[in-house]
């Protein structure tokens, strides 16, 4: 029983970290219509940034600044934001699929730099993390995982509340206006380029925060953590959960990560021994099928975007299902 609980906490921690990243992508894609195909670069920037800033001195590469954990985590998120700012200035004039291709290229570049720049990232052998924060207080076992889960959950809720406020604000309406019709927004005197950049950087900071938590939790990061698969997983979570709906984004993270892990568990348990070696491939098929089915029958996601009709002076907004 304690095993089940322990696993549930562990699973929820990873799912919550991924949910934070999905929320960041939701701001970019769901609300602003920016197709970020390089999620993993910003996730990785946050992860490496956090470990470099918070790590203990290591012989063969950068790091060892030993900053207090909150500073290191914030620094990682800022690193992701800085990367997004540079990338954004270069690429945000691109639309949809072109932006996707450009950002995907950035992500592959990022992975290769991390694999080769030994002095920066430890290269292919990876970057060892620091002792997890407050480990002395909670030890190594279940209590620690519970503490870390509550930290991650708090941050997830904070990010969620922040985004909910943001998208309901005038700025949020502006994001949606740009998503729907950029020219119309410009004709009203808005500056779409700047708003798109703001949204892109903000979303990337959130994704970087998720990366920082991820690297802290595993106390290790290597180029293998920043492969394009992660971008695909985070996108799948957003599509299934519902782009443009923050609750949907978080739900999607739990569902897809749950399906990913549960299918592996179920196959290892119930599939016949001869099929055991093929469970990996079967799992890919299962998850691919879920995504295809979603796109066919419920393309708006499980929790679709709620269309908010704002009327001045009315705090309670009438809602309407469907997009």
């Amino acid at each position: 029983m304690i095993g089940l609980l322990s696993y549930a906490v562990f699973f929820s921690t990873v799912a919550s970290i991924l949910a934070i990243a999905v929320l960041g992508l939701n701001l970019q894609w769901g609300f602003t219509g920016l197709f970020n195909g390089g999620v993993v670069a910003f996730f990785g920037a946050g992860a490496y940034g956090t470990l470099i800033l918070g790590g203990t001195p290591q012989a063969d590469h950068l790091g060892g600044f030993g900053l207090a954990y909150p500073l290191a985590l914030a620094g990682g998120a800022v690193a992701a934001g800085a990367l997004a700012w540079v990338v954004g200035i270069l690429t945000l004039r691109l639309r949809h699929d072109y932006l996707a291709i450009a950002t995907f290229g950035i992500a592959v570049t990022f992975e290769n730099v991390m694999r080769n720049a030994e002095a920066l990232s430890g290269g292919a052998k990876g970057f060892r993390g620091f002792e997890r924060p407050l480990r002395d207080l909670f030890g190594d076992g279940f209590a620690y995982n519970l503490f870390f889960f509550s930290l991650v959950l708090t941050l997830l809720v904070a990010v969620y509340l922040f985004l909910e406020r943001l998208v309901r604000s005038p700025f949020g309406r502006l994001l949606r206006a740009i998503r729907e019709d950029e020219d119309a927004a410009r004709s009203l005197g808005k500056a779409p380029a700047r708003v798109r950049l703001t949204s892109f950087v903000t979303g990337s900071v959130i994704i970087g925060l998720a990366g920082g938590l991820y690297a802290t939790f595993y106390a290790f990061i290597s180029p293998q953590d920043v492969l394009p698969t992660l971008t695909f997983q985070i996108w799948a979570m957003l599509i299934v959960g519902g782009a443009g709906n923050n609750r949907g984004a978080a739900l999607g993270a739990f569902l897809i990560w749950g399906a990913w892990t549960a299918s592996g568990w179920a196959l290892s348990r119930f599939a016949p021994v001869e099929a055991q070696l093929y469970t990996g491939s079967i799992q890919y098929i299962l998850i691919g099928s879920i995504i295809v089915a979603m796109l066919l029958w419920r393309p708006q996601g499980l929790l679709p975007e709620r269309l908010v009709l704002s009327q001045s002076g009315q705090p309670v907004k009438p809602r309407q299902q469907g997009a």
Partner: protein
Amino acid sequence: MTDHTIRRAGRFALAMALATTALTGAAFAQDCTTKIGAVLPTSVDWGKPIAETAQFVVDQVNEAGGVQGCKIEMILRDTQVDPKVGVDAAKALVDLDGVQVLIGAVSSGVSMPILTSVTVPAGVAQFSCCSSSGAFTALAKEGKTKGLWFRTFATSNVQAVVGAKVAKDKGYKSVAVLYKNDDWGQDIGKLVAEHLQAQGITVTASVAINDAQPSYRAEVTEALAGQPEAVYLALYPTEGISAVREWLSLGGTQNMILANSLKSDEFRDAVGLQYLGSTQGTDTSSPRVASADAFVASYKARFNAEPNGPGLANSYDATMIALLAMEAAGKDAKGADIAAAVARVTDPAGTPVTADAAGFAAARDVLAGGGTVLYRGATGNVRFDENGDVSAPAVIWSFTETGTQEDTYITLEEVDALVGGSN
């Protein structure tokens, strides 16, 4: 009650009866089952045979009566070479199935987070066939693996120590090191410099060689500045050829020591054999023991193919040593006890046992009598150092007209002595 429900009820009863029979049948066949976990990249083509080999070991041990009288069930989970997936699978195996032994993973990038966030906190013993990163040794040296980590894959340390031995045997007083600027090159370059210094040889320079430069004049000049008597080259042929040509043309010595990466005809032909007369290279070697041949034979009998894929012999040994250690640690042993028992089954003074079902049965008897065992595995007589690393036999070779010839074969015992002596 309709016909339909009656039929359904009947079918249900039949299913129940069948299930009961199946259960009691199982109970007769075996009294107990001990689970072990395996997290391996089965969705990757080269990962599948590694997993099959691990399962092969489990089948052999079950054939010999299992561990402590219990059948072993290996629960295999796929890592998809994705650290998140691998860590989650490992955590599920530890928490939900209560395994005390985990086989895996293959990639260092997956094994490491499993080690730091799952097995060490939970006190589970982890045996990897193939993770090669030096980060594990560093972690172990800091005591952060708590002795729970083992890998059956020899590190670059073996070649580095043998390279230093060549320098010492030839009486060189000073050596410059040129290394390829990647994870492997940086690792071995650093190690060889340490071992040379430990032998009392001066390292005049350690110079990184980047890929695909048109000229290495600057690097070579830097290495020549200390006027070394010999040069150690941990390079790949392409950069190695350019660098060595410039080295020789600038008056560098022909006393060269090469890592196995330069054991190539391309390098010999491009540099010219007349310049390589006093050059020797090092390489790790597959063991010259009967047990290695026995593994090849039994593998062929089972899979009808040569065990040529990467990591197969290592996977076999990792799994077998894990199971032997479980047997040695006693019933219901925890991961830490199993890890501690590894020394009892890889004891050089112990009774030698073979790598098959009969060997396992023999080991059980010896262990039950309080003795220790020397496991003669598919990669030879495996012995772990205090960091959970293994070494391998090595060879010293030189170039000939037609290829390379072996000058010296250094057995595992001698390699161990060298590694031990220079530490």
